[in-house]
């Protein structure tokens, strides 16, 4: 195993673990995979779709 292998393997592992941790944190914060909360969803062009945090759909996904 070369130093290059260690660096690349480490970087890939960091990216994968980081992505998983971000997804878990998002889930706990009631955010969807896009990183947004359903409250005032930024993907939606209707700005007034407002859901109470405890009723947020993405928490239950």
């Amino acid at each position: 195993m070369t130093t290059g292998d260690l660096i690349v393997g480490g970087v890939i592992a960091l990216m994968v673990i980081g992505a998983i941790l971000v997804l878990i944190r998002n889930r706990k914060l009631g955010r969807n995979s896009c990183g947004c909360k359903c409250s005032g969803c930024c993907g939606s062009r209707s700005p007034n779709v407002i859901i109470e945090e405890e009723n947020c759909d993405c928490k239950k996904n």
Partner: protein
Amino acid sequence: MSYTIALAGNPNCGKTTLFNALTGSSQRVGNWPGVTIDKKVGRIKGTDSELVDLPGIYSLSPYSPEEVVSRNFIVDEKPDAIINIVDATNLERNLFLSLQLIDMGIPMVLALNMMDQIESLGDRIDVDKLSEELGIPVVPISAAKKQNIDGLVTRIMSVAEKKQTPHLMRYDEAIESLAEEAEKALSGKVPEENIRFYAYKLIEDDSLVNERVPGARDAISVSLNALEEEYDDSADSIVTDNRYEKISAIVSESYTKAPRDERGTLSDRIDKIVTSRIFGIPIFIGIIALVYFIAMYDGDLGQAPGAWATAWVNDVLFGEIIEPGLTQWCIDNGVNEALTGLLVDGIVHGVGAVLGFLPQMIILFICLVILEEVGYMARVAFVMDRIFRYFNLSGKSFIPLIVGTGCGVPGVMACRTIESEADRRITAMTVTFMPCGAKLPVIAAITAALAGAWWVGVFAYFGGIVLVIISGIILKKLKHLAGKPAPFIMELPPYHMPRLYSSAKSVFDRSWSFVKKAGTIILLTVVIIWVLSHYTPSFEYIDENLGDSILAGIGGVLAYLFIPLGWGDSWELASATLTGLIAKEDLIGTLAVVLESASDEAEDVGDILAQMMSQSAILSFFVFNMYCAPCFAAIGAIHRELGTWKHTGIAVAYQCLLAYFVAMIVYVVFGTINGDAIEWYSYMFAVIDAVILAYLLVVKDPFRQLGNPGGTEE
């Protein structure tokens, strides 16, 4: 002291803007009336008091989910005070809710919003006179310009502290006498402080009072019948008329209008064209076509800015700089071939293929945000109502469709504003036919595969609308989804220039959320896809002949389903369709990993698709993936709207089947016109599909005349 203050008002009167100004929050604000479907809570700056933003409503009658939410909060939660925000430019209509709120007997301040517009119109409102007539404090403000917000906070705190209840409004003597009788009948059975509100609701035969105090209406039936005979009208209409007469008197005392242009306002004049029966639809199609042209066009006339930027990111940034640089670095440092492949061909290439479309998406977002900001999208809902109504659907269903073009999850959730259960279920089942933000990379890739055919996006957009209409026609023939369309009433907000900050923030938020998604869910998917496509079932690494891989085995089984659609026996396309269920962008990420890493030349997904398939097959691949089952998040949202997994399963199966039928017909029709080689069984399936669809469309609707036979309409 800490108080709970309710913020109540009509839709689109600047409520969210005032909420943001009072709390320092940054909830999205738009020129778009009323799909706020639940309350939102914040803390008023500089105080310990809580502000509860209620959905925009026109009255306290429980006709819609928004009204139920607002009314239940005010009646059951009993806020310490109410800020009733009123659009000063629509004073007469807005005061109808104010009079009902006054009846509640809760301390209240009227925030007279948009006073800057009143001044620019040359009108004048005598605030003191208005306050005197209404019997509550009135504070003139401009929420958008943050004018007199501190004055409003001071006033509402003072009113809450002193528990300063409104002076009750007096109506005709006959009604007042009946109201007193109703109060006696309700005494001790409802909260004394709200008794006047309940008394009027009893007269109006409101379900709230009838449920809480059964039989109370019988106690006033003699006087009630006498009143109805005297006025020759129903009691609720008499009360409503009296309220409007009162409002008219108040407004004439306090509001002086400057002379108006006989041709109407600029908004009125634009609306005469934009919402006309003749030009409304062609203008809508033209505008959406222009939006996709600006973002996607790449042809004889040159490259549109979005297409140019995307080509640069894909070809130069990733194709010539990042990927060759990383590959060379790996070779120089003796990195293992599999690790190099995973890093460069998997992660960088897969994620890069999706991120490469970001410039085109930004251009699209800018155009669509401008359309929403200026108030055009509200007109589209109005224009589409005519068409939807013709097909026995409600125009209100179109609002979730517009929301769904951003993201399917809030699109499905926006269905909750539809009163009719049948319409709500049908819309929830079909809203994901619209091309959401996640489908934009697919649209862009197919545009490239079809030699810069910018119309692909327009096709996806209007194809989605057509499929919603087709579904509405078909599904309304089912007993449990039958019913008359719900009435659609929507106030058209005036046109205004897009606000630079909120528009820029909206575009940034959407773009950033796309980048975050690429860095998380898409990154993880491409890693898994790369591993599955570069290892055999016995876990041996393969760099070529990916057909021996684990993924090829899985995709290969599915591929048989798509042979009639012209996809050949491509396990790559079948696998990509499968990963599209995780997130639609993954479709492109997967194709980038499994197609491009197997390609000798550095080409993008579009180019490879163009080489491996006929144009008609590319189009069928596109149609199926646009309209089949949405991502898991959207399926979850559909499940919550439909209630059971059984119904959700039926909805997803329906979507996939319809997408399959339409993809088949498009493949055969386009292929025949284009002169592509099409197998006999595709013709046969296309004819069968067309016949089934035609039958379902033309077969008589057994419930059309019956209104609501299933009893499902609320």
